[in-house]
């Protein structure tokens, strides 16, 4: 769980940084798309690098989900009779929404791929014209809303995911507990904000 999560996390960070190119003008984002396709092309061929990344991500997602399903199943087996009276658990909101949050994010990813990778659901839908596709998307308030909900869910997922992964990997000792808590929250906030500035930038006409 922690290892696959870490891979996905690194990808999310790279993705967010890439997105910010949108603020550098229309050419920048499209050029970045071309760069990714050309990256290591002498070895992997045009677009080869992206396919490698996609395969790795797919594997990580599958492993992440398998582990999640396994944990959920073990949990159910470990408590065959549930409590008759059980108020909602008292721990953090992020911790107790991991499973449903994960499902929301997975559904979003499907939509997101159909929208901006395959272009099927995109109002513009021209391959390679990334900037134009993005702008076309986020001029519609309901798309922005959908993205916002998903990104916030991602933020919560990362907040507990990071915190938990650091523990699972044994990084967090008792002495570094507060630091770990703070770091997990900080990183989750930065990523959430980092993803949201682009859609809202478009919506409010800062990115054209």
């Amino acid at each position: 769980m922690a290892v696959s999560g870490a891979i996905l996390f690194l990808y999310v960070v790279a993705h967010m940084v890439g997105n910010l190119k949108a603020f550098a003008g229309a050419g920048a984002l499209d050029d970045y798309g071309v760069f990714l396709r050309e990256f290591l092309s002498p070895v992997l061929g045009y677009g080869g690098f992206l396919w490698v990344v996609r395969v790795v991500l797919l594997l990580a997602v599958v492993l992440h989900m398998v582990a999640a399903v396994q944990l959920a199943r073990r949990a159910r087996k470990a408590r065959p009779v549930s409590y008759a009276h059980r108020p909602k658990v008292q721990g953090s909101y992020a911790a107790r929404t991991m499973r449903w949050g994960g499902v929301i994010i997975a559904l979003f990813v499907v939509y997101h791929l159909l929208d901006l990778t395959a272009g099927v659901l995109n109002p513009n839908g021209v391959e390679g014209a990334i900037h134009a596709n993005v702008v076309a998307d986020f001029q519609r308030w309901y798309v922005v809303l959908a993205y916002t909900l998903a990104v916030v869910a991602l933020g919560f997922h990362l907040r507990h995911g990071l915190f938990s992964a650091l523990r699972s990997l044994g990084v967090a000792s008792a002495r570094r507990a507060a630091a770990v808590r703070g770091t997990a929250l900080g990183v989750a906030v930065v990523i959430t904000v980092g993803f949201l500035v682009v859609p809202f930038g478009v919506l409010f006409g800062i990115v054209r």
Partner: protein
Amino acid sequence: MRYTLRVWRQRGPEESGGLVDYDVDGISPDMSFLEMLDVLNERLVLDGEEPVAFDHDCREGICGMCGLMIDGVAHGPERATTTCQLHMRHFDPAEPIVVEPWRAAPFPVVRDLMVDRSALDRIVEAGGYISAPAGAAPDAHAVPIPKADADAAFTAAACIGCGACVAACPNGSPMLFTAAKATHLGLLPQGQPERLSRAEDMLTAQDDLGFGGCTQTGECTLVCPKGIPLETIATLNHDVLTAALRGR
């Protein structure tokens, strides 16, 4: 004062159980929760009914024998408190109180509110000790231990093995219990030779016993009567990971 209780009654592990309503009268705010159950039980006996079975012993919050799910919270509404140290002054007589046993597959119900927690003993037996035969010990001052380490070891060692962590965990995991033992012994110089094997063996035993896996929800530490910190889990994980990487 008069309270309405909804108590889980179950004759044995194989039989089905259910919540039964009781009214108990003459409860004073200074009574502990268990003393309130004593009052109910004395009345039941005099009425010729079998009393509600529940585990308890020291009644001063240290033996770890008592433990009830009270209104869905392990050991009830007060933080850092065992059921025997919980007093009736914290309850509103207008609200019925729901009392259930710990629920986890490795904790089968023995009767009513009493469960079999011997799975926790199995975890300790798998490695929760330092091998030190009587009579073979060097002088106690042979190895000084930094005060901070001794204090941290004590904090983890304060676990009373009540099982509230398992009861509260949405996954039914005893990770906090296991981690407390691994941390207590792993922080001391005497515990170093067996540190990695201890962590690994206890974790394996825990999984084999049918407990759920830890997802660090933190529910455990919130209900722990001794406030064992969640960070102990990181210490255990660290040792298990190190053991795996070293190819043990």
